[in-house]
């Protein structure tokens, strides 16, 4: 199967299509190049949103006004939230790694609809630019929070409409990506690759894609309704126009809770790839992991009400949503146990990807268990809309999905760029990141429990110690990110040439040269065994 020996190999990076140079990139329909386009854009937008995060931390170092006014601060957490959620974490893993590796891992030459893929990239870009622009034009940065709760969002005189449109367009782009992936997985698997021979990263994308396709339209129409409410004064949610504000929250969370699983499922898929490779043994409980992904996707659809425990919904629904929220934790638990069991009995090589994957489990557990604290009605009453929630989702998004992203980046870097990064720098970067992360967000749990609300520009003096520690952590984290990103960026062009299979992986992407050729495979492979088969096949060179 391996064809790296043939001297005529041209990597996709050097492949010349119809167009040359920059245009060749901008008009490409190669899923790998589109994946990279997403990667570069997302890094830029992450930088913007992360800087806003750090500025907020500086503002919060002392009570009262420190470096900005209340209006600026409110705009900042809104834009920070919107960019992070809609521009970064929802698209990131499917659009970067999904685009790049999904076709390769199922033995296809491209996704089902390559042009649609490019189109959805441009939608993404337009939406993202709209989001950033809303910060600067006209009436000032939107100040509603990323949740756009009505009636405030239908009254605020800031650029709420731009932000709504941005979120709408980004949602559309996300739907098209999901649609593309579902069809790809249904129609383009290599011969012999039955559903149960598909690796687990594609499986996690499959579950994700269904959520993208079936939940996103709801938020789309909801945002349209808010726009109609603002522009045409049609009453839906604003009580001044006869509407019902709690109905907005229902509709918003019908999408946005499933959306949190859009964020985490692909991340889980990535670490599921990493554990078998670095312990050189099959994944423990393939079917259990697969079905737990589908279960999370399905049950996750019905728990949205846990964001509304205090919104005056009926006692019966609080009961119901709390119950289902707890149920949804069980498939996550199954996954965690299967991952750590994969390590057991392996031949474990500690390399940066594995280190990130293990940190993922640690941080995800903290995020997950605090999620359970929030899922329990009694305790949520106390910590709802406090710094505790802020800590929960930073742990689970940044610590979970974020660290999974870093893990994937270090795992697939040699395949994407055909170069190796420096391991030592990667460890140092990890050290700063991991320490900084915990110093930054752990204190938020404590002050949250003591009653520090979120979206607070100003706060009571008793919370200052926690806030100061947090801010210090922010800067440690900052250092770590710079080291990590620096390491990767520098070595993408200048690192040592990477072999085709540096980690001795067995999934298809490791059977082709690094970087892959434009067509991925010279001939479409035939699959005749389960995906994580570490038997003595010839590929394990």
């Amino acid at each position, binding site marked *: 199967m391996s064809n790296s020996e043939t001297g005529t190999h041209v990597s996709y990076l050097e492949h010349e299509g119809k167009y040359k140079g920059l245009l060749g990139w901008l008009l490409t329909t190669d899923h790998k190049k589109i994946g990279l386009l997403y990667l570069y854009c997302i890094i830029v937008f992450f930088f913007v949103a992360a800087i806003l995060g750090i500025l907020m931390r500086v503002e919060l170092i002392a009570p009262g006004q420190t470096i900005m006014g209340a209006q600026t601060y409110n705009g900042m957490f809104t834009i920070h939230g919107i960019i992070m959620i809609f521009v970064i974490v929802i698209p990131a893993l499917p659009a970067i790694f999904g685009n790049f590796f999904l076709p390769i891992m199922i033995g296809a030459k491209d996704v089902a*609809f390559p042009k649609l893929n490019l189109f959805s990239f441009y939608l993404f870009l337009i939406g993202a630019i709209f989001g950033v622009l809303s910060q600067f034009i006209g009436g000032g940065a939107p100040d509603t929070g990323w949740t756009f709760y009505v009636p405030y969002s239908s009254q605020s005189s800031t650029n709420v409409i731009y932000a709504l449109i941005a979120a709408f367009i980004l949602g559309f782009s996300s739907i098209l990506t999901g649609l593309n992936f579902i069809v790809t997985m249904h129609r383009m698997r290599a011969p012999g690759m039955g559903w149960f021979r598909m690796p687990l990263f594609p499986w996690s994308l499959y579950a994700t894609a269904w959520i993208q396709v079936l939940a996103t339209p709801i938020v*789309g129409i909801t945002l349209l309704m808010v726009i109609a409410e603002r522009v045409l004064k049609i009453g839906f949610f604003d009580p001044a126009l006869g509407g019902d504000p709690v109905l907005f929250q229902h509709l918003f969370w019908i999408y946005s809770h499933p959306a949190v699983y859009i964020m985490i499922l692909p991340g889980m898929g990535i670490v599921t790839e990493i554990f078998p490779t670095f312990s050189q043994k099959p994944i423990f409980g393939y079917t259990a992991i697969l079905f737990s992904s589908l279960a999370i996707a399905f049950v996750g659809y019905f728990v949205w009400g846990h964001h509304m425990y205090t919104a005056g919904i009926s006692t019966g629904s609080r009961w119901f949503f709390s119950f289902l929220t707890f149920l949804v934790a069980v498939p996550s638990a199954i996954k965690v146990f299967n991952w750590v069991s994969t390590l057991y009995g392996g031949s474990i090589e500690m390399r940066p990807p594995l280190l990130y994957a293990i940190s993922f489990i640690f941080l995800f557990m903290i995020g997950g268990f605090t999620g359970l604290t929030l899922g329990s009605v009694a305790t949520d009453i106390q910590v709802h809309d406090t710094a505790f929630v802020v800590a929960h989702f930073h742990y689970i998004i940044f610590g979970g999905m974020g660290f999974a992203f870093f893990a994937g980046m270090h795992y697939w870097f040699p395949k994407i760029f055909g170069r190796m990064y420096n391991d030592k720098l990667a460890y140092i970067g990890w050290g700063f990141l991991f320490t900084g992360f915990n110093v930054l967000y752990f204190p938020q749990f404590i002050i949250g429990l003591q009653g520090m609300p979120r979206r607070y520009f100003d706060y009571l003096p008793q919370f200052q110690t926690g806030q100061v520690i947090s801010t210090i952590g922010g800067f440690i984290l900052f250092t770590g990110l710079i080291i990590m990103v620096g390491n990767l960026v520098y070595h993408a062009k200048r690192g040592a040439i990477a072999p085709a299979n540096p980690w001795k992986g067995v999934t298809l992407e490791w059977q082709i040269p690094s970087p892959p050729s434009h067509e991925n495979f010279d001939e479409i492979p035939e699959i005749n065994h389960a995906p994580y088969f570490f038997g003595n096949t010839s590929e394990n060179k």
Partner: protein
Amino acid sequence: MSTHSIHSEQIESETGKLGMWIFLLTELFLFGGLFLVYAVFRAQYSEAFHAGAEELNAFIGTLNTVFLLVSSMTVAMAITAIQKDKKNLAIFLILVTLILAGLFMMNKYFEWSHKFEFKLYPGSEVLKNLPRGELLFFGLYFMMTGLHAIHVLIGMTLLAINIFKIKNGEVSSKHYLHLENTGLYWHLVDLIWIFLFPLLYLIT
């Protein structure tokens, strides 16, 4: 894409159709959000929704339903025609569909402008002073039929494109995925109207 055997044609069309179906499901959910809002408000203000529905002209609504149903059939027939390689018949059937769609839009136009004459448009003083339930009813009416009308327009554009594609041979008895998908889209427009019609015009 390059090998034009019957077999790859078949695969491509299955792929395209699957994609279209998934897209249609997202469209259903898009309207689904509105139906959800409708359901909640309707349960709370059933009297007012009744009163609102009385104000709408059920005759025009029925007429429009008939237009859309017939047009749905003509599109379906157009596909049969192209499958049987009867190009002119297919073009004719699509034209009939377009005419029916045009009649539907014309009716909509008169219906809306009639409302506007009575100062019943979003944000108007008259509307604002209506009881809360009726205000919501008319809000939903404009939003739902408006969004639906946009879909009708998109569908009409797609149909018109198909006429040209049939003429220059891009759509033929071998290769009619484009027409098939347009047909699916047009049926979706019909499906949504089938729900809208009783909810807005009939329920008493």
